[in-house]
């Protein structure tokens, strides 16, 4: 798509794109290039010189059991976050859609958590499940369940999943609700006249019509779980216990800034870069498809 009517001149447009190009070049292309370059070297322990190792860093990573474990952790984590945030959101959206009055009020209340930063969400959930002062962990203790996410890997994972998924319930709710409102009433009413029950209508008509939204949210939530949940992990578990919640983005940080292993961290950045690229392509392919639905 191109404009037919344009203005003449080339100096002005160059000046207009200049700020964005400079910012992108300095803070995006140069660092990304650096990441690729650094991933080919290993610095010596004193940081005085570096040794070219080709794809050595990558080879090492792919055979490193910690890195593999982190891949698996990320997979489990992002699937669970997606599930935990989408299922309740869909349920709430379906309920809200059944209402003629009051849906707006519920929507206003449900939007709140979206505005809460992942790191703050982490602090709130940490507070509820804190092993010493947490309200929820205390009541669990009264029921005879000894909650300790500091030592128990499963509980740690469960806590970061719920804390990460919480704010996304709002986000997914908004999209599901908008999509439900767009489902033609006549179709639903026709099915109702034919005697289809609510659940029957939901599974045979509404859910298929929601599939573009569902798929879109699936991709977006996985991207979110991969890249935007650093704050949650860092505030609640700092990747522990025993790396049980060290997702890939956390590991880049832990190896690069805490462990000072720059070559490995850079190689991890490059792998993540490829992952984001792939996810973006999926997202775009899908957006194109969506038009034909």
């Amino acid at each position, binding site marked *: 798509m191109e404009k037919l009517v344009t203005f003449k001149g080339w100096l002005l447009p160059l000046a207009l794109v200049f700020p964005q190009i400079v910012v992108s070049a300095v803070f995006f292309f140069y660092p990304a290039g650096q990441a690729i370059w650094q991933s080919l070297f290993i610095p010596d322990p004193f940081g005085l010189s570096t040794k070219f190792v080709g794809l050595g860093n990558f080879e090492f990573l792919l055979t490193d059991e910690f890195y593999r474990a982190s891949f698996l952790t990320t997979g489990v984590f992002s699937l669970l976050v997606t599930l935990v945030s989408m299922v309740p959101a869909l349920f709430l959206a379906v309920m809200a859609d059944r*209402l003629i009055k009051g849906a707006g009020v519920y929507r206003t*209340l449900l939007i709140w958590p979206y*505005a809460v930063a992942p790191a703050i969400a982490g602090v709130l959930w940490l507070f509820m499940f804190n092993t010493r002062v947490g309200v929820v962990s205390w009541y669990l203790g009264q029921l005879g369940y000894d909650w300790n996410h500091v030592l128990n890997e499963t509980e740690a994972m469960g806590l970061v999943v719920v804390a990460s998924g919480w704010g996304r319930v709002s986000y997914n709710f*908004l999209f599901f609700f908008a999509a439900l409102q767009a489902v033609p009433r006549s179709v639903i009413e026709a099915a109702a006249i034919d005697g289809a029950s609510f659940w029957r209508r939901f599974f045979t008509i509404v859910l298929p019509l929601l599939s573009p939204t569902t798929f879109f949210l699936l991709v977006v939530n996985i991207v979110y779980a991969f890249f935007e949940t650093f704050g949650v992990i860092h505030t609640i578990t700092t990747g522990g216990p025993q790396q049980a919640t060290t997702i890939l983005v956390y590991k880049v940080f832990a190896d690069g800034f805490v462990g000072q292993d720059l070559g490995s961290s850079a190689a991890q*950045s490059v792998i993540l870069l490829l992952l984001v690229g792939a996810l973006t392509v999926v997202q775009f392919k899908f957006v194109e498809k969506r038009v034909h639905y």
Partner: protein
Amino acid sequence: MGEEKHEPIPGMVEKRGRALWLTHVLMIVGVLIVFFPIWLAFVASTVTQPEIVSPPMPLLPGGHFWENYKKALFSGVNVPVYTMLFNSLVMALGIAIGKIIISLLSAFAIVYFRFPGRIFFFWMIFITLMLPVEVRIVPTYEVIAGFGMLNSYGGLIFPLIASATATFLFRQFFMTIPDELAEAARVDGASPMRFFVDIILPMSRTNIAALFVILFIYGWNQYLWPLLITTDVEMNTIVMGIKQMFPSGDDTADWPVIMATSILAMIPPVIIVISMQKLFIRGLVDSEK
């Protein structure tokens, strides 16, 4: 008046009677569960430390609201919270305004001009769409350190401006502006910048506002980047500063102050989201498409 006779026929789709009540009850339960963490944080910010450290803490607000918030705002733990609030505000505004300005300009150039390198620049911007700052932290950190921009607002803002989402939204929007307007402007001898200021900007008002809401929240809620580059507590932003308020080691955290700070940290984005709900939802749906 015989009102009962005029009542609408019970719907088959929208619920009435018992089913309606059940729906409301389920909705309320859902909202309560979703809201509980925020409620608990608020309660904790209004009680005393001893009430919290001897569980279970109360579930209804106490009488120490002013005390805790005053302590948080003006003394804090490492640095007064008002300093962190100010830093967050500068960062969020800087990112939102900066991104909107450079995107408006570059989208205008790409849509309304034919110039050498146009396609190249277009793709260059397009590629930046893909890469969150989380992925390139180490080298970006080195760039900022090289410029001596650690612990500065510039260092907080610039790396997060380099993204193409806004440019693409504006490009899409400009494509829908009728050609006749540009034609008329040209015939009248208006310069491109005159056209931009008098026609394009006013027409983009809603888009700019919607984008502003999204970008402000994005900027306000940043965590990893401020964590890396603000080693000076005076430059901490509130979202990253909360974690720094937890003592290292075995000391007990000052929960009332920490929770008051958490509430303060969520107020600005929540106000923006609630008060600009329509714009926000529009911006959200647009920017994800």
